[in-house]
């Protein structure tokens, strides 16, 4: 039982890292980035390319390198896709719709390229990249990768909460979310802020991608889709834009999944997740955090 909770917590930490980016881009910029799962996959893919295909780079270099690649990729999306759409759109509704379709196309593009690179096969990282050691705590065992995951999530969560709640950029982002025109009048640059925010969400997706790749050691082009489903459940449970509620929902979801797999049938996991989604949509569609600061 304690063992399942430990495993659930580390899975929940990865879910939370992934869901943060989706939630922030939505709350702050009104962008539902369906390419977020593909960017996550690119993080894992970068780790594989750096270690197995091109060179034998150590983990301490792979992790920041993959995070950087994903941040740059997300920035490229902002410059090539989101920004032109924002500048050309007739109204906000059209901008929202066009942006969602564009993120689906971007995801398709990244997945198609990844299919070529992996040859359509699941790929594994070399054993030497991360020597997994197990520590016996008496009541449960924990691996060092699980410790790394929990530590990174423990740093990233509060850092993001500080960024959104206290920093000048974070305040500007919240102002932008509430009233775009008013924020612009007070000197907030939507373009600069979007670029910064999107780059941060890309970095988070990349971080989650590398960590999950090391944890489960299977990298394939469609790996982001499963995670997107989980992140949707987390956002529906948590509500958009709240870091604390996102963490809580991610941990609860991961624990539920782990326990269903342990004590029932593992193939029932997604059924339970979907049941949770429908239940929250009926009972509390705004999520546990309520509306918070995102646009109405």
């Amino acid at each position, binding site marked *: 039982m304690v063992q399942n909770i430990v495993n659930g917590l580390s899975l929940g930490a990865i879910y939370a890292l992934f869901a943060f980016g989706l939630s922030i881009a939505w709350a702050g910029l009104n962008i539902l980035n369906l390419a977020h799962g593909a960017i996550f996959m690119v993080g894992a893919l970068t780790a594989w390319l750096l270690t197995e295909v091109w060179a034998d780079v150590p983990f301490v270099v792979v992790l920041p390198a993959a995070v950087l690649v994903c941040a740059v990729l997300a920035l490229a999306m902002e410059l090539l896709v989101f920004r032109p759409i924002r500048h050309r759109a007739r109204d906000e509704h059209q901008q929202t719709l066009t942006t969602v379709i564009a993120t689906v*196309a*971007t*995801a398709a593009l990244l997945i*198609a390229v990844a299919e070529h690179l992996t040859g359509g096969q699941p790929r594994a990282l070399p054993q030497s990249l991360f020597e997994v050691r197990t520590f016996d705590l008496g009541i449960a065992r924990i691996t060092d990768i699980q410790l790394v995951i929990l530590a990174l999530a423990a740093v990233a969560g509060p850092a993001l909460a500080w960024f959104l709640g206290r920093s000048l950029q974070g305040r500007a982002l919240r102002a932008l979310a509430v009233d775009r025109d008013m924020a612009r009048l007070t000197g907030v640059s939507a373009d600069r802020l979007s670029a910064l925010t999107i780059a941060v969400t890309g970095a988070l997706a990349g971080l989650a991608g590398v960590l999950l790749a090391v944890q489960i050691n299977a990298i394939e082009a469609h790996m982001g889709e499963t995670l997107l489903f989980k992140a949707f459940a987390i956002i*529906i449970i948590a509500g958009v834009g709240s870091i604390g509620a996102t963490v809580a929902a991610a941990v609860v979801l991961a624990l539920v999944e782990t326990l269903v797999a342990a004590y029932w049938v593992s193939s029932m996991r997604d059924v339970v997740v979907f049941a949770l989604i429908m239940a929250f949509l009926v009972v509390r569609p705004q999520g546990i955090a309520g509306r918070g600061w995102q646009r109405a």
Partner: protein
Amino acid sequence: MSWFAANAPMLRTISVLALLGYSVQIALRAGVFSFATVGFYATGGYLAANLLKGGWGRYPTLLVVLVAAVLLALLLAPALSRLRFLYLAMATLAFTLFVQSLAVSWATYTGGAQGLFAIPRVLPQPEMLALVAVVIVLVWATQRGATGRAITALRHDALLSASAGVDVARRQVNAFVGSAVVGALAGFVQVSTFGVFGPADIGFSVVVDALTVLVVGGAMAWPGPLLGAVLLGGLPAYVSSAGDWNLVVQAIVVLVLVVYRPDGLAGVVAQAARGLAARRTRRPAEVSG
């Protein structure tokens, strides 16, 4: 007739793509951005496959598939009806991802990762084309007259159109159910003409295909999905194919179109027609102004 026989696979592909595109369009015109189309396509396809394999005829199967789609849509509608635009997009995509996951794990019914084979190919080509034509006529009919104006109005301003007497909630549920029925019909056509159905047929690429058809053809005009389906399904047969890179090219085309041409090709054609008409009627005195 020989052209129809020679191009049977291409016509099957175009038919399924057109139905998928219309399914998304029917919902979208009423302001419901729904990714559930692929979920209904999948559930309709698997249901049809199992019934046909069980020896059912094509019309009883079609009837059951469509009724099941209506019931499933009405079951989901209460949960979806209170959601705003992006939430709705996310929740309907969650439904589709859930159905995809179920298709792999519920192997006794779906054939698991391999899918279902040797499904009787019971739908003759003329009947397939007739089904598509019926859908197009119905879509065309709902885009004109009072119904068409009410739907257009509620998409542009739900609150204002409600105050003008449009029953917004009912129209949107109707649109969602209509979208579900056409999505399930696409599944039935796919299964009963190709004879195979599996996770590869309902994956993320189908979501991309449906959106491609919509974006290429033009999201709102009734000929849009047909135009998009003909281009997406028909062009590879004539133009030298990009081979393995087809998907990459397709994704780039969609990206360029949504960023720079949100009206799609139908919009380009309409704009050109307007331009020609304007040139013909324009007088020199007006041009100077």
